[in-house]
């Protein structure tokens, strides 16, 4: 019988192993005869490597091999690719300089990969790495995106350090709209660099089997099939059929584990070279230096309005920091995942966005939770807030006045997206009620009595996720399709293995997907196993990012279940001596319409594998594979409201209340969805109040290279959150669902900065709003009052 569990807060099936120490992460695995790898990294931001002497390292106890870029070159090891070619405003492809796993002659950021030492133990490898002598000829470095185009050149084939100069929208049309404006709000802002910091550091174990000439790579990957594809097609030339990539339990990703990195590539190449398994686990310091970072935009924006405060047009000019090399998907983040979101929830008729992507002597920048959409939302919800203050309008009223209305869907924005459905005012109203917006002035007065400044800040966000229709992304330069696969495999005894391409690293797929299958096929959850993370078991897949697992991966599972039911009907019709058209499937039973003649799913599965009495023209077995290519993005949207209290004497900001009202369409498991919202908000609050990846502008050294320097949100930095939901079901996927993984991180930064600037009575401040910055602004405000 079905559990009827869809929509219920089912507790997670994966939890027991994590709670008892039985999770199996890459660093928990050991292979017989393995060697430990330690990387020699560049201590300089920019330098020519003039010589590398490995003699002393090789003589060190336990060291088996030391390799440099020169050793990889003869084996044809290629550059780590960028999988999305952005076409610039002149019709030229972006600049994509070579990015070799071990450098060939030049280092371009602190932490760049110079050599690898393989030894019997990690300690011996570390001792050996200390003995590799590298001579550098230092070059002047630049870490700042705004200065990149006049800074010393990183790559000969990227003049002016420019990756691309790209534009979306028609400048002339937008200028025309601006010429009719009653008021123009202008804003300069920075979206601060973040370092993702999944709690499990990246790790890799590579093993070559000379008997079959094949490789296995255990990797902390969000998308093992994509990793295999990149390694096979672009980097190592190992056929996909000879390479198995396994991503077991993975301790968080947030985007940083999408990519094909230098370290796992080197381990994979080196295992055959030395004939032994090779393992590497990052120390946290290495994660800070060499994981892909996020954000790092500098932007000027202008919003034109008429006398009623209706938006007439938006102009945006952004410089986006790509870091030293193009990471796998770096190019599409500040373009197709950023500029396309600049309509937000509003009817702004014309928009133009110019993005210059530049190279600097910093770690590569790529997708981090939200990826482009937080940058768009921060800009938009900040400039709308500033506009409301300049026009002396209530910020909620200005938003409502410009919202796309429920009867306008599907709504085609001026920036290339078509929103399928939404009700933005419903979310805003619900959030205002939850936080008692009407009571805010009284609360503010109460705070004032206590010497505190109280502020309230809105963020009415939208995002595009569940990425993405392959034909759309293909036309925009993506090198891959963004469908997902699923296989629903019945066993003869009626249990099911569901193989999904959507990798789970905290999202709870083993529970959510099992709920979906249980309800769809009428099989108890305990009879359903969700299998993911192994290219040796699962059909070709695209993996987890862009809040796509349920909307795309779940839809693939639904489609495979549909095929199971169709085949089951044929078997049932034969057994029940009825026409297929007369068979109904409901609650796990195949019934002849209008009769009590029925067969259970378990009986059908058994018959499929023991086909003694079986349709002559039907294959045995009950095992169906499906691929699902989404028809559109999904568009989760909602309103978050932050209420803060600032102590002007200390600069400390306290979040006194937080309400989030989100529309994720149909909810499969509210417990898990709320958990995703909490975690997303925490990362956004981290960006807004605490976190900032800082390089020294002179030396190019990473100043925030540990948890002593990079301020992660801790339990005592955060409040409890109040989460509400509205629902407009997604119109184009079979579950009616929208993605929920990134929304919190997208919505929250402007809410909190809007609240703090409201408290301080100022127009803008840069993130993170540290006590020092807030204190200085509070003192300035006091002086000018």
């Amino acid at each position: 019988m079905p559990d009827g569990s869809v929509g219920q807060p089912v507790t997670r099936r994966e939890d027991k192993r994590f709670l008892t120490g039985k999770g199996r992460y890459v660093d928990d695995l050991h292979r017989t005869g393995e060697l430990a790898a330690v990387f020699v990294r560049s201590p300089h931001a920019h330098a020519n490597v003039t010589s590398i002497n490995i003699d002393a390292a090789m003589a060190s106890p336990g060291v088996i091999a030391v390799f440099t870029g020169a050793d990889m070159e003869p084996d044809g090891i290629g550059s780590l690719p960028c999988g999305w070619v952005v076409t610039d405003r002149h019709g030229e492809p972006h600049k994509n300089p070579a990015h070799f796993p071990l450098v060939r002659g030049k280092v371009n950021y602190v932490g760049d990969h110079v050599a690898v030492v393989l030894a019997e133990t990690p300690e011996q490898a570390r001792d050996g790495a200390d003995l590799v002598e590298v001579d550098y000829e230092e070059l002047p470095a630049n870490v700042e995106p705004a200065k990149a185009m006049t800074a010393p050149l990183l790559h000969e084939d990227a003049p002016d350090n420019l990756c691309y100069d790209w534009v979306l929208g028609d400048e002339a049309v937008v200028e025309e709209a601006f010429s009719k404006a009653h008021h123009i709000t202008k804003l300069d802002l920075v979206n601060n660099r973040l370092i993702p910091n999944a709690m499990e550091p990246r790790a890799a174990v590579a093993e070559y089997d000379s008997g079959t000439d094949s490789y296995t790579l255990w990797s902390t990957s969000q998308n093992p099939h994509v990793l295999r594809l990149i390694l096979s097609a672009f980097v190592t030339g190992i056929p996909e059929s000879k390479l198995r990539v396994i991503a077991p339990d993975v301790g968080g990703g947030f985007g940083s584990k999408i990519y094909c990195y230098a370290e796992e590539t080197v381990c994979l190449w080196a295992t055959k070279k030395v004939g032994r398994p090779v393992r590497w686990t990052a120390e946290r310091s290495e994660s800070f230096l060499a994981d892909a970072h996020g954000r790092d935009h500098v932007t000027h924006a202008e919003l034109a309005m008429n006398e009623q405060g209706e938006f007439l047009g938006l102009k945006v000019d952004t410089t986006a920091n790509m870091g030293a090399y193009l990471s796998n998907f770096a190019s599409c983040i500040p373009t197709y995942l950023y500029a396309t979101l600049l309509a937000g929830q509003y009817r702004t008729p014309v928009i133009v966005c110019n993005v210059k992507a530049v190279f600097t002597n910093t770690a590569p920048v790529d997708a981090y939770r939200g990826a482009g959409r937080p940058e768009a939302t921060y800009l938009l919800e900040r400039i709308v807030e500033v506009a409301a203050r300049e026009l002396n309008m209530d910020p909620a009223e200005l938003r409502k006045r410009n919202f796309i209305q429920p009867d306008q869907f599907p709504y085609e924005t001026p920036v290339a997206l078509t929103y399928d459905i939404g009700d933005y005012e419903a979310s805003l109203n619900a959030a205002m009620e939850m936080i008692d917006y009407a009571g805010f002035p009284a609360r503010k007065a109460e705070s004032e009595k206590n010497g505190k400044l109280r502020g309230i800040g809105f963020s009415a966000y939208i995002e595009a996720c569940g990425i993405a229709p392959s034909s759309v992304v293909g036309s925009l330069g993506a090198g891959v399709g963004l469908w997902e696969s699923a296989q629903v495999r019945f066993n003869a005894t009626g249990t099911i293995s569901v193989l999904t391409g959507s990798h789970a690293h905290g999202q709870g797929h083993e529970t959510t997907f099992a709920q979906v299958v249980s309800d769809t096929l009428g099989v108890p959850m305990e009879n359903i196993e969700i299998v993911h993370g192994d290219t040796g078991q699962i059909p070709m897949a695209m993996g987890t990012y862009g809040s796509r697992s349920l909307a795309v991966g779940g839809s693939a599972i639904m489609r495979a279940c549909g095929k199971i039911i169709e085949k089951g009907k044929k078997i049932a019709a034969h057994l029940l001596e009825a026409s297929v058209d007369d068979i109904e499937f409901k609650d796990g039973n195949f019934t002849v319409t209008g009769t009590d003649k029925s067969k259970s799913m378990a009986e059908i599965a058994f018959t499929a594998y023991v086909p003694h009495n079986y349709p002559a023209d039907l294959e045995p077995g009950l095992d169906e594979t499906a691929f699902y290519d989404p028809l559109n993005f999904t568009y989760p949207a909602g309103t978050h409201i932050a209420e803060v209290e600032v102590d002007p004497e200390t600069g400390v900001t306290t979040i006194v209340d937080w309400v989030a009202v989100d529309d994720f369409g149909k909810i499969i498991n509210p417990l898990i969805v709320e958990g995703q919202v909490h975690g997303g908000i925490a990362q956004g609050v981290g960006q807004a109040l605490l976190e900032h990846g800082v390089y020294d502008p002179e030396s190019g050294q990473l100043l925030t290279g540990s948890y002593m320097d990079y301020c992660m949100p801790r339990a005592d930095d955060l409040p409890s959150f109040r989460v509400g939901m509205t629902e407009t079901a997604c119109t184009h996927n079979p579950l009616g669902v929208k993605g929920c993984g990134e929304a919190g991180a997208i919505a929250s930064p402007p809410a909190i900065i809007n609240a703090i600037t409201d408290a301080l009575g100022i127009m803008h401040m840069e993130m993170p709003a540290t006590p020092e910055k807030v204190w200085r602004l509070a003192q300035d405000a006091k002086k000018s009052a």
Partner: protein
Amino acid sequence: MPSVSMTVNGRTVSKEVEGRTLLTQFLREKLNLTGTHVGCDTSQCGACVVHVNGQSVKACTMLAVQAEGAEVTTIEGLAKGDALHPMQEAFREHHGLQCGFCTPGMVMSAVDLLQKNANPSETEIREWLEGNICRCTGYHNIVNAIQHAAKAGAA
């Protein structure tokens, strides 16, 4: 090489170790107790919290030889057979974990909190957890789980 003896999860163990071996490495590499995790290299993240003589300790802050003769409990030693410890049960019931990586340290730390303060306020819980970093949950459900465990008398 020095040798070290201690009781881990009720079992007496004795191994030769390098002097520089940390308690985390000893548990993970020598005893294959991989539930104790390593999330940083500056004793900040708390993924490696275990109990040493009943007190929560970041196992990366101790050399293995310093645990000579100690009673050590790791996350693997918390449940009684198939029955989860009430704190583990509370984390499960209230979705106090996502990727699971910080979870062992978080649970071991929370158990010690209730040993010391059977009925902590939300503020006291949040301040106690200052040494345990979670990147997934925003701590909301972790705090909630600990409050429920306290109500259930998990101490």
